[in-house]
């Protein structure tokens, strides 16, 4: 039975032709974004100078642009995921010391497939293979926060500089928070049964070798999965953003979330973000529109990081393996890191 499927797998050739075709179509679509949006406005008999015209143009330009970028990046990540399974990442991290280990863990967090529903098995799996607690946390913070959807949307809506800054600072928060937690020696605040599983036997990695055809399949499947799940949020977000774009008066946000807002607006934004559990897809288009109205980028990004990285539901799941002091430390350290990022962004930009 298994030999038959193996021969089956070998004989399938990678769909290079389709890939090239898809890539060309992608480029062509991306190049025609503005003409399409312009003609959509013209077909509706609207002018960009009116409120409605501006809102509709924003919608027809941003929606396809964001969806295109998202599809491209998610496809690439789907292929990358076939190279880095959690088991492989664990083997690379096991026995690493603080410092180097944290940097490696945070970076691997970007490219390792991760779903917040398997955060706990992953957490225990890492610890039981001798990955230090602080290093494990670096991975656990970076994996959801610096994800491809957030990066694709930031890239599409704000450009590569902001996406790059978010990537660098997100990694920074994950590395720093993991190192602090590691230094504090909080192992005793793990639940007892988890401590019992902690060991120092390094993990071995036995991966199955995939063929390129299967890697491409994985990319396509990832696009179907992620883009299929996320597009309604993006549409709703951009729709809302378009409304704000066309109708909310300029500088409306400046006094609430702008640079001249009082110092506490940033901590307030982070606090508000904790009980919210959403993905980057729904929030970011709204965020972009708010920034156009005078909100400061740092404050808004800190809000976004807090929504994604510090979610109440995730902490409730983590409670099964961590005792309260450790959860509190985790939340506190990450919150401080996000605050720093927010203040730095506001100062620099």
């Amino acid at each position, binding site marked *: 039975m298994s030999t038959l499927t193996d021969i089956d797998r070998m004989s399938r050739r990678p769909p290079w032709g389709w890939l090239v075709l898809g890539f060309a179509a992608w480029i062509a679509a991306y190049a025609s974004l503005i003409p399409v949006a312009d003609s959509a406005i013209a077909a509706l008999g609207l002018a960009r100078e009116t409120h409605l015209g501006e809102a509709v143009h924003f919608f027809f330009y941003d929606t396809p642009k964001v969806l295109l970028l998202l599809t491209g990046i998610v496809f690439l990540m789907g292929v990358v995921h076939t190279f880095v399974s959690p088991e492989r990442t664990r083997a690379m991290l096991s026995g690493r010391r603080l410092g180097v280990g944290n940097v490696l863990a945070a970076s691997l967090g970007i490219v390792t497939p991760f779903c917040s529903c*398997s955060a706990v098995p992953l957490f225990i799996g890492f610890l039981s293979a001798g990955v230090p607690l602080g290093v494990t946390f670096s991975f656990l913070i970076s994996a959801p926060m610096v994800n491809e959807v957030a990066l694709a949307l930031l890239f599409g809506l704000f450009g590569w500089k902001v996406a790059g800054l978010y990537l660098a600072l997100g990694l920074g928060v994950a590395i720093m928070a993991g190192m602090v937690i590691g230094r504090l020696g909080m192992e005793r605040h793990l639940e007892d049964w988890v401590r019992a599983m902690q060991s120092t036997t390094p993990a071995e990695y036995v991966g199955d070798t995939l063929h390129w055809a299967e890697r491409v399949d994985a990319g396509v499947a990832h696009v179907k999965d992620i883009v299929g799940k996320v597009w309604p949020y993006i549409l709703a977000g951009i729709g809302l953003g378009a409304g704000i774009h066309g109708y909310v008066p300029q500088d409306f946000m400046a006094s609430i979330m702008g640079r001249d807002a009082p110092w506490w607006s940033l901590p307030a934004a982070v606090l508000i973000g904790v009980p919210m559990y959403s993905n980057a897809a729904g929030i970011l288009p709204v965020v972009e529109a708010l920034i156009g109205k005078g909100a400061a980028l740092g404050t808004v990004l800190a809000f976004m990081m807090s929504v994604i990285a510090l979610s109440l539901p995730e902490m409730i799941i983590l409670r099964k393996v961590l005792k309260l002091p450790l959860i509190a430390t985790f939340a506190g350290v990450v919150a401080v890191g996000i605050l720093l990022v927010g203040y730095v962004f506001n100062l620099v930009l």
Partner: protein
Amino acid sequence: MKNIKVLGPGCANCKNTLKLIDEVARAKGAEIHLEKIEDLQQIMSYGVMSTPGVVIDGKVVHAGGVPARAKVEGWF
């Protein structure tokens, strides 16, 4: 008679996996005993890190995400 366990804390993907296995087994007329394991300590005892995982007669055959239908069909 195969003893199949689906490991997962109860996310949507775990339920989909359970449904898929049930469907395929029915379509193939295979006799199975299907079970869902939600207890974390039990899940961890199989060494599975990414859920949902699938265990057949004590052996882990799949981990991480809903398995492809063709893969499930290969089990029966």
